[in-house]
Structure formats: C-alpha cells, structure tokens
C-alpha cells in the first residue's frame, strides 16, 4: 500500500511535468516508445542515451544450449555489488539451459526463478523505468527477441561507514550517527523501535536527481493531520535536484522570512527515535546524514539529547544555563554598547572607571569598536570552519593573537570589549543546536545597532519584536512557542524544567492529540518496604 502511494505520486508528477515548462533535462531525451524486441537496437539506445559513459557496463552473453540467444546485462559500475551480479545473476543464467519454446510471459517467470537468489526482480517495459532502475543500482537484463527488460536488485557499492556524529555530541548516549545511505539510516531507527506501527513511505524527489526521500512516523502516535501536511508539502516540491535535506527543509518550512529554524535536523538516531515517539514525523533524504524532524518547537532547540539520559536535576539546571547562554549570545555586545554609551550610571563606579581607563586610548566610539570586533570574530570563525583542519589551527592562533592581544596592545580595542566578544563567542558555541545559535548570531547584530541608537530602550524594543515574531511562528501548524505560548501546563515538565522521567505521563499536546498517554502514572521508584529490609538486616 505504501509503495503504491509512492508510485501514484510519481505518476502524478510526471503528468504535471509534461504540461509545465521542461526543466528536467530528461523528458525529451528518453524515448517514449516501448523497448524494442531487438537486443542490438536496445543496447544502442542505452549507449546513446548515457552518452557512452564508461561506468555503464554492458556485458553481452548468450543463452541456451547452443548459445543461440543473445542477451546482455547492464549495470552501473560502483552502484552495484559486482560480486552479486556475477555470482547470483550471471552464473545461474549461464549454467541453466534456456528453453526456447517458452512464451514471453513464461520466460520472465523462468528468469525470475533463476534469479531467486537475488530478489527484487522486476519486469520493465518502458525506458524511463529502465533508466531509473539502472541508476538505482539494479542490474538490467535484456534478451534478444524479447521486448521488455528484467531488473534485479543488486544495490551495493561504497558508503561511509557508521561513525560517531560530528554534531550534537553527547558524553552519555549512543555513539552512532546517521550516514549518507538512506537504508542504513532507516534501519537504525527500525532497530530502536521494533514495532510494525513504525511506517515508512518513500518517494522520489528531484526531476533530474530522482533522490529517494522517506518519511517515517509511528502510526497511531503521530497525528494524521501532520502526516498529511508533511506529505502534501513534499508532494508539492518540483525541483531539479535534492542534494541535502536542507533543500527539502527550505521547501517545506512554514516561514521563510525568519531567522529561526522551524524544522529540526539531527545526525543522531536516538533523537529521531525519541521524536517519533512524541508523535513527530521524520524525513530522511538519500545522500545526507541529516534527518529532518517536524514539527519543531522553539524549546526543542534548547534540549540536548543528554538531558533525558542524565538525571533530572542536572538536566534542569543545564537547560536554564542554556537559555542564559542563548540570551548572552544574543545581547552581550548590545548591553556593552548601551551601557557604555548611554547608561554609564548603571555600571558600578569602580567598573566604569576601569572601562573608561581602557577606552582612553581607543580611537573609536563604543559601537564601532564592538562592531569591528564582532565582525572580526565572525570572519575568524568562518575561516576556521571552512579551512582544512591543518590550516584552521594556524588561523585560530593568528586569531587569538590578533583579537586577544595585539589589538588591545595597539590600542585599537579595549580589553573589556575583548572579554565581551569572547564571552559572546563561547556562549554561541555552547548553544546545543547550531541552527538556533546561527539565528542568535544574526539577531545580535540587529540588537547592536538598536543599542547604539536607543540604548537599553532599543534592546528592549528589539527583544519585544523578536518575542512577538516568535509567537507568530508555526511549524506544520503547531505554534512555535508552545507549550509556553499558548501555555500548556501539563507539558511544562519537559520545557525549561526536565521533571523526573516517571513524571512524563503525556506526550506534547499540540503535536499529538489522540494518543497522549505514554506511561503509567505510578512508577516512582522507592526503596523496598521496611519489613523486607528488617528481614534482610537480620542475616
């Protein structure tokens, strides 16, 4: 049934495509007529259409006792497991005697039986499907005198192996991260949630790339409306290629003109599994280790996966720390600017004199000083991220010297400013989600401008506008700020606070509306009853 859905989707889009302007680079190329009965003609067409690319391997051979039937197998080198091809496709065919008398349909069944060891044997009669199968890693077989092809699944080839995720590192928790292979990724979730209700639906997106995109959810827990919404948005996509889940993310998110992320992406299977259990929907994209999770809430970006593995008091404290960190990375330079150029009375006397002393030799106004330092820091960070690791270290040494020491000694900036920039930088690195740290980075500059023009008043206005904007955002129909706004008291246990695990009785309300109870309510662990203890004490 699921497969059908994917198929019908594909057909539908093809219809649309033929009506609209052609941007696929494919529609006109692929012959519309069915496969020819003659092997030579078919091979010629394949060669011509693939531009004689030499990774498309065409291997001719002959079948039958007298070797009188010409045949060929075609596969793409690197996408298939060659051992499989030779061992399970070619060898059984060569060893068997091909009965000439068989009808077309029976020939197919005969071959299918011979190829039982491979599986995924399909009957192909049009070129479009042939090429799709070919480039998905199947081996296609053509036989002279038969106007259709047979494909067998021989997917293989090299993939990056499962490694520790590069982002969202946890001290405690599983060490495996997603890879570029969609199948490996979905398997990681299957391994965690062994339940037939874990449903997976696959489709191809990208008129040129034909990238596999899979959505995964737990039937009965995920909200049908959200599932339908995700599917509808994915169906709407009409793009030439999808190379990373970021393409999908930007095409299905609710609001483009916001700095805040309204879908969540992660490299960690445990995070995806936890989100599926809360009723969210995951979107896997072939070729990237980043899996999208929707809907995403603002508070989610402050919840590290380890919060659920560590004990509740520590997790709660850390969550408060993270909100503080976010706030610091947002406003620290703005507060410095406002306090030193407008509200000197708010700084303690000793401190204001110390700052004034440092600023004596600085030739720029506070705002320019702050802006220069922040921009310098952003340059350094960008350089450090993009450069090869070996060069990156050199950059960080130069950066430390330029930012930290030389600039202060030369009197370009005050050391107080350096402290502010460093604390902002560290804070923005400490935010658990990179997506939200980046948005804080952008807003910070806006707040700095406001602080330079209006002081604390400007900062307050900026934060107010930001809050209003946040409250207006939605992610797949779910208010972005929930359960803070709208306020849902029963879900507050897993927002800023992280209550003990046995108190998480319900799933988040707005994401999941029908199946809200997740565990029984009387699981508080307790020491054994006193009578037992007394017995034990006697021995």
């Amino acid at each position, binding site marked *: 049934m699921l497969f059908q859905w994917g198929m019908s989707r594909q057909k539908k889009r093809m219809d649309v495509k033929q009506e609209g302007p052609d941007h696929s680079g494919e529609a006109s190329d692929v012959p519309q007529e069915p496969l020819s009965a003659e092997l030579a003609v078919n091979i010629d067409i394949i060669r011509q259409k693939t531009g004689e690319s030499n990774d498309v391997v065409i291997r001719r051979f002959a079948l039958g006792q007298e070797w009188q039937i010409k045949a060929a197998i075609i596969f793409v080198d690197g996408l298939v497991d060659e051992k499989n091809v030779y061992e399970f496709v070619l060898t059984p065919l060569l060893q068997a005697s091909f009965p000439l008398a068989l009808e077309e349909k029976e020939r197919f069944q005969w071959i299918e039986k011979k190829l039982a060891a491979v599986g995924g044997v399909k009957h192909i009669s049009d070129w479009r499907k042939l090429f799709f199968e070919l480039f998905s890693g199947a081996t296609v077989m053509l036989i002279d005198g038969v106007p259709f092809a047979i494909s067998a699944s021989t997917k293989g080839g090299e993939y990056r192996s499962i490694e520790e995720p590069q982002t969202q590192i946890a001290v405690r928790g599983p060490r495996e991260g997603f890879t570029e292979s969609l199948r490996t990724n979905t398997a990681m979730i299957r391994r965690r949630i062994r339940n037939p209700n874990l449903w997976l639906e696959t489709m191809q997106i990208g008129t040129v790339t034909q990238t596999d995109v899979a959505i995964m959810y737990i039937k009965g827990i995920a909200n049908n409306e959200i599932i339908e919404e995700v599917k509808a948005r994915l169906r709407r996509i009409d793009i030439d290629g999808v190379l990373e889940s970021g393409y999908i993310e930007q095409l299905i998110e609710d609001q483009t003109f916001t700095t805040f992320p309204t879908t969540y992406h992660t490299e960690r299977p445990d995070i995806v599994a936890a989100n599926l259990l809360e009723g969210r929907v995951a979107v896997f994209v072939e070729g990237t280790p980043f899996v999208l999770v929707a809907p995403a809430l603002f508070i989610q970006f402050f919840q590290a996966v380890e919060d659920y593995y560590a004990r509740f008091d520590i997790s709660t404290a850390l969550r408060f720390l993270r909100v503080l960190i976010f706030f610091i990375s947002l406003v620290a330079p703005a507060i410095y600017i406002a306090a030193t150029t407008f509200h000197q009375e708010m700084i303690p006397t000793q401190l204001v004199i110390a700052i*004034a002393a440092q600023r004596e030799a600085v030739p720029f106004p506070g705002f320019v000083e702050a802006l220069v330092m922040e921009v310098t820091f952003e340059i350094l960070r960008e350089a450090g991220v993009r450069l090869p690791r070996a060069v990156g270290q050199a950059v960080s040494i130069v950066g430390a010297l330029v930012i930290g020491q030389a600039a202060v*000694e030369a*009197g370009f900036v005050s050391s107080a400013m350096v402290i502010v920039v460093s604390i902002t930088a560290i804070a923005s690195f400490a935010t658990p989600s990179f997506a939200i740290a980046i948005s804080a980075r952008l807003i910070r500059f806006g707040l700095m401008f406001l602080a330079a*023009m209006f002081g604390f008043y400007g900062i307050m206005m900026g934060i107010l506008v930001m809050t209003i904007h946040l409250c207006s955002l939605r992610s797949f129909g779910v208010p972005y700020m929930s359960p803070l706004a709208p306020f849902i008291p029963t879900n507050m246990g897993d927002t800023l606070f992280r209550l003990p695990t046995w108190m998480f009785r319900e799933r988040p309300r707005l994401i999941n509306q029908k199946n809200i109870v997740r565990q029984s309510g009387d699981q508080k662990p307790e020491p054994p009853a006193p009578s037992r203890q007394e017995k034990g004490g006697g021995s």
Partner: protein
Amino acid sequence: MRRAITVIVSLAICAGLLSGCWSQKELTDLAFIVAIGLDKTEDGKYLVTFQVVNPGNVAGATQRGGGAAGVPVSIYTSTGDTLVEASRKASEKLSRLPYYAHTNLIVVGEEVAREGLSGVLDAMERGNQLRPTAHLVIARTYLAKDVLTVLTPIDKISANQIIKTIEFSSKNWGETVHVDIWGAIHCLATAGRNLVITGVTVEGDLKRGKRQENVQSSVPDARIKLEGLALFKNDRLVDWVDGPSSRGVLWLLDCIRQTNLTVSWKGKKEAINYQVVRAKTDVKAKVKDGRPVISVHIQAEGDVIETRVPIDLSDASMLFQLEKEIKKNLKQEVEEAIETAQRDKTDVFGFGEAVHRTDPRLWKKIESKWHDRYFPELDVTVTADMYIRRTGLRNKPYTPRG
C-alpha cells in the same frame, strides 16, 4: 499594500537615523565626578570643588604604559551664586562633560553648614544625574576643597577612601555615621529629629598632601581622617561632639553595630575590653502629667576580648559584676551625649518622633517649641542590658611574675 510598507519602513529608518543616538555619550567624553566639595568664598558665593577621576591613572589602566604614573584624581573649582551656576561654569576648565551619576560623596564646608544646608540639598535632589544615595560629610577645620585635594594611598580616589572609611568605621568603631542626601533631607523635613553628620578633616601638612609624593611614602605627609559628629539644629550646624559622647549619640540612634567598651576594674582604669557584636536600642516615649518622658533601653551582646588585670572569667559572679560595670560605662556615655544635645537645644536622637508616635495630639501642641523648650528639659531614663557571651580562648589571664 506595498506602498504602505515602503512608507512605514522609510519612516522607521528616518526615525532611527534622525533621532538616533539621542543622549549618547562616549566614555571618553565624560568627566566622572566622584566627589563635590562646597565652600563659601569671601564675597558670599559658593566655591564648588569637583574631584574628577583621571581614568588613565587609576588601577586597571595598567595595561598600557607605566600605568598609574600620574595622580588618579584632578581637582577643579568654580564659583557661582548657586550650585548649578558654579557647576556649569566649571566647563570653562573641564575638557569633558561633567557626569554626576557616579558622585558618591558630598563634602560640605563647615561654613556652609553653619549657614544652612537646605539651599544646597535641593539642587542635589532635583538633578537626575546625582544620586540621592551619595554620602554627606562635613569638612571640619579645613575647607571642603582642602579635604578633596589630599591624595590617599590605598584607595587611590580619595572620595572612595572617605566613603569606605565611614562604612567600616561605623561598623567597627561606631563614632561615625553614614548619612546620604536622602537621609539628610528626611531629617530636615521631620520636625522631631535633627541631623547628625560625620566630620572629616586633614591630618598633617596640607600643602604636601596634594602632591604625588604623598602617596609614595609609607607615612603620608597628609591624611584624611574622620573626626567627630556635627550636630545640626534645623539645617544649621550648631556643635561638634567627639569621642565617647559621639558614640553615645549613635547608641541612641541605634546605629551601633560593633564597638569596643573599655571599663575599669577594681580601681585600675581601662582594664578590661568588651567588644559589642550585636546591639539594639529602643526609644519609647510616655506622657506623664501632660509632659513627655523618654525611656531608652539598650541591649547588647558581646565578648570580653582583653583583660589587663587578673580576673577569673570562669566565675559567673565575676561576669555579672563585669556586666554591671560595662552597663555603667555605657550609661555614662549615652547620658553625656544627651546632655550635650540638650545644652545645644537640638534633638538629634529623634525623641520628638517617639513622642509623636505615642501621642500625636500632644505632639501637635508642642511641636513648634520642641527643640527649644521641651527637649532641653526632657526626662530621659537610660537602661541597659549588656550580656557577655564569650570570653575568648582563655579564662584566667596570665600574671607576670618578676
């Protein structure tokens, strides 16, 4: 729609750019005035002294050059008929905008104080920069200007030195009191209480105190010192009290937190030292035969910290005797203070307020004549409870044997 957005956005940008940076002031354009001194010139004008921080020479600026090479503060003076005029005129000499938000100390010259504070305090309370929590002291013997010119060794900015001295001295010794502008105005506006302000003076050679060498020597040529309490009547300074009786005043004001009392023992003077660690004073008023009577009860706890005579402190009866002796000592101190104030006809203790609370109607009648007629003849009974809580690590002191 599009047009409306364009208009709104351009208006917002204009609003930002045209009004932007309103009241913006860079740190390097501000002169941080940490203390203000008030004196009178011979022709009756105000002589206002500003102590301005020289940020480059304060600790913390050591990151560049030789650090604190020059003097940390600079003194500017100007004259004017009013305070505001004088402070505006100071801009003739100051290269930066005077900034009063960090002014923590107001030194009032004795002469100005004797003529009346009320005209002075208004400008300080009204302005939005100067804080009403700024400390108030009276310059004694010397001019306020002289006090502010002395350089101080440990706290480089002398205003800070004075403020911190007041704070720690009032905590540990109890002969000085912290009065801020608000407190002073509160006292002036209250009929049943008059003002007490700590005095400050210069010890040593004033001329050499201005120079950098003053802080480069281990024994400075001039030091700033707190001395005595100025008693005010209404807004005028009338008298100074010093030593034990100034502490007596502060006992009555319930301002004592910790102090030392030295008592004589068996004929030997100043033999035993008692340290107060917790003290509380209750002032109650009663009306007796239509006349107000005040009873003061002082409660204190403390330790014996020094004995110079042989005494067995493990003996409880000895301790009772000692407590009695301390009580006597304290009562004497307090009564002296009351006598002085009664002689000066100024109720600095707030006895009038106590009467007001007890019998508001009677107070209405006697309010106008309180300080001059009723207070000097007021019956004040002082009772005290002094407890010895600890006697240190030794019960019997050693006796030197020749």
